[in-house]
């Protein structure tokens, strides 16, 4: 029954003083209302006669708005009056065009689209939970509602990472072109790999004249160099417990994903092969960079549903996977946190094996709060204690960094908002120094 039945009873109660026998009046009116309710319920469209399916966007970038349409069909011979609630998880930010308290009318045999606008607040897969239809009778005194009728059409909206750091991409690509030698701004292209021989033009570095080739030809030929291409890059994302904590405004894993995407975009443009591995106690995602043109979209889709797990990361597994997959020397970029416990007991024992074959770069982000604690001028006694604690935390991290450095590992430790450009800069520096 609905509020109308209650209202009917309450309004009927006001006529009681006029009844010769008020208690009989109560019985009569209650019975009448119950009868009406029963009849109304029987006249309502049964939920089993409804169909539901969905259509609409499958992916949306974090911050954007997607539209998913629920199509509700009425296969019965009666007009459907219904309240419909299309429930999504709260972080999907669902706003139905027709709010659940409004009554929808569907003629017999018709189908109505019910669009829902979704503005997700978190990255990842956002599923639709349940469709509930409350089929009201013609008097709207009673309703029929059954869970699971009509069956909820499954739908998952994949929320892609925002990739904020793509604003750094043009600048990094410009620097890459400088290194590549295709754009001469600060000198000729540097590199270690022989590219072609071409005729000398005035302005070329005389040191790059290839005298042997010039002797064979009538012209003076210069060698051109380019940076190595077809190098291998492996991004490894640690999705264990240290990635679950909040850095700034989002989990540390999101910072790492952002940096990994920038690095991948840059490396793909530089002609390097990029693989990706995400693991904690099991491999959560693995992408091999064979199909180069669609690499970035594939990578984004692989990274989007990653969620940090509250487990200790198994670096033994990660090292084994890298050694198994990468037979050639690669640059392994490990996105993790500089936690003395997690890295000291997990990574350090397997690091020698890894560093023997690959060049390892450990990229870690730290909370900007820590920087604020240590750099601000102390104004109150609490600030002095906070500075001491902050410096101590930084000193612990420095010890981890020193331990990693002993194995020839490059360590990037940056505040969360600066991690992606810093990692990209390091990659460009290593590339220009031909250390890949």
């Amino acid at each position: 029954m609905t509020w109308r039945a209650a209202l009917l009873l309450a309004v009927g109660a006001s006529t009681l003083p006029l009844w010769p026998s008020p208690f009989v009046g109560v019985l009569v009116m209650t019975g009448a209302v119950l009868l009406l309710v029963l009849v109304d319920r029987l006249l309502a469209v049964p939920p089993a006669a409804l169909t539901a399916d969905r259509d609409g966007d499958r992916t949306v970038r974090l911050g954007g708005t997607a539209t998913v349409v629920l199509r509700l069909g009425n296969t019965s011979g009666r007009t459907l009056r219904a309240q419909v609630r299309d429930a999504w998880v709260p972080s999907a930010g669902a706003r139905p065009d027709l709010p659940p308290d409004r009554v929808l009318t569907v003629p017999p045999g018709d189908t109505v689209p019910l669009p829902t606008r979704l503005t997700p607040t978190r990255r990842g897969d956002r599923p639709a939970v349940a469709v509930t239809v409350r089929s009201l009778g013609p008097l709207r005194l009673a309703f029929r509602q059954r869970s699971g009728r009509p069956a909820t059409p499954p739908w998952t909206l994949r929320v892609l990472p925002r990739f904020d750091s793509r604003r750094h991409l043009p600048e990094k690509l410009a620097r890459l072109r400088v290194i590549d030698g295709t754009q001469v701004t600060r000198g000729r292209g540097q590199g270690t790999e022989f590219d072609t021989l071409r005729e000398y033009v005035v302005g070329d570095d005389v040191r790059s004249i290839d005298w042997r080739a010039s002797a064979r030809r009538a012209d003076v030929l210069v060698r051109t160099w380019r940076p190595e291409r077809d190098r291998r890059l492996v991004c490894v994302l640690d999705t264990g417990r240290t990635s679950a904590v909040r850095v700034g405004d989002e989990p540390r894993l999101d910072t790492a994903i952002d940096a990994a995407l920038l690095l991948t975009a840059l490396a793909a443009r530089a002609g390097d092969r990029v693989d990706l591995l995400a693991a904690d106690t099991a491999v959560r995602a693995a992408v091999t960079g064979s199909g180069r043109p669609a690499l970035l979209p594939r990578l984004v889709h692989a990274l989007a549903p990653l969620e940090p797990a509250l487990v200790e990361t198994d670096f033994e597994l990660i090292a084994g996977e890298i050694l198994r997959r990468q037979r050639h020397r690669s640059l392994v970029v490990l996105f993790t946190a500089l936690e003395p416990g997690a890295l000291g007991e997990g990574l350090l024992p397997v690091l020698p094996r890894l560093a023997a074959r690959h060049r390892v770069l450990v990229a870690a982000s730290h909370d900007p709060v820590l920087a604020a604690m240590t750099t601000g001028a102390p104004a109150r006694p609490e600030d002095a204690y906070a500075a001491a604690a902050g410096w101590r935390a930084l000193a612990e991290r420095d010890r981890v960094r020193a331990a990693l450095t002993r194995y020839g590992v490059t360590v990037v430790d940056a505040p969360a908002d600066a991690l992606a450009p810093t990692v990209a800069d390091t990659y460009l520096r290593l590339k220009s120094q031909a250390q890949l």
Partner: protein
Amino acid sequence: MTAATHTAAPRAAAADRARAPRRRRRWHRIVIPFGVVAALVTTTLVAQALDRPDPGDPGYLSPVETDDHGASRLAEALRRRGVTVQRETDTAAALRAARSGPATLFVPAPQLLRPHTLARLAHLPGGTRLVLVDPSRRVLVGVGLPLTRTDRRWATRAVGPETAGRPCPLAELAPVRRAAAERQRYTPDGTAPVDLCFAAGLARLPGAGDTLVVGADDPFRNDRIGERDNQALAVGVLAAHGRVVWLDLAGPEPPPPSPSGAPPTWPSRPDGPPGGTTTPDPGATGGVRPGTPGDGDPGGGRPPQGSADDGERPPNPLWGAFPPWFWALLVQLALALLVAALWRARRLGPPAPEPLPVTVRSAETALGRARLYQRAGARGPAGRTLRATTLARLLPWLNLPADTPSERVARAVAARTGGDPEQIEDLLYGDDPDTDQELLDLARSLDALSRTVAASAPTQGRPAGAPPPPDPTEGGTR
């Protein structure tokens, strides 16, 4: 339902969630103790009110009632003393009995009497003692006693016979040393000669036939007569003459019969007292109170359980106070509420569950350690940490090895900043701070020093506070 469909911004919600439990706990800290105390006080008050016998209860201070609130033990003690106990359940009969010779008229529940009966009590013959238990102000005025009720205690207290240091003038109460008699206290009106005993809880008004007013019923009740000298007090009060006329009323005194059927010597007043509480309303209730004089059953005024004339309790007068449609209206509105509750009880689909991200900040351990330092007053370790990390930053900037003696470091820093080497050495290698203020000064000075050195460093333009990176390391860009 609404909570599941409406998506709050999870970050703001996360911050709220972090604050909310603490606020709730703080709220609990206030509410729980006060709530427990309030519940205890309420329970005590309610239990005391329920436990205290009411003069209107059947069997209250009756010589034949053996329950806790009866007075059978007192009647027994009086009989052992050789006193005749004459139980009367009708006021007219009791008054007749009291007039027939020297006697004590004992009225345990005087508030049940009607005003004209009270007026007749004032005109008892000489040699008759009237004993009233805890009379109300109406009774005092009705009998014409020059007494005023003053403060009333919440519970009865056992006191000695003195009042304001003066001994009790009543000779029959001489053996009583301590009795539970002080509950309602009395003062005489004006200069009337009144003997006060037991801290003014018992008053005697001398006259032709004296009148005794006892402010507490405890000395007479079965459950407390055995305590202290309660029995001696009760017997002493009542055994002044050889005969006690015990007016044992079952309920409020019935109105006088109609003038036609008036008993002899009863100057009935046709208007009677106002207030229809005892007037049987034939239309509304139709019941007959047990113990009505019309029954003509003087001995059955206090019938044992189950042997009442019709065995039916009188219906609640509240039923008759409103018309029947009012109750029907209430019933129907309650039904409407029930329907509304059924409507609201069925939700439109289950709530949507979702695993939430971790809300712990990565700097949480450092912040927690800072609070721990502060709570423990760890100024020494905090100061040493600050000095050590400042040195670790300064030495690479000054191109000095890590094991440089302190004077050389101080000289190098002084050369860079232009300060006094001794002061700088004291700052970098001095004693641990003793107070929070000293620690704050130390932190400020170290901060200023490292800023100055960093600013004057010609080759390394790193901002102050950044950790010195080991050589092959990137990062720290701010």
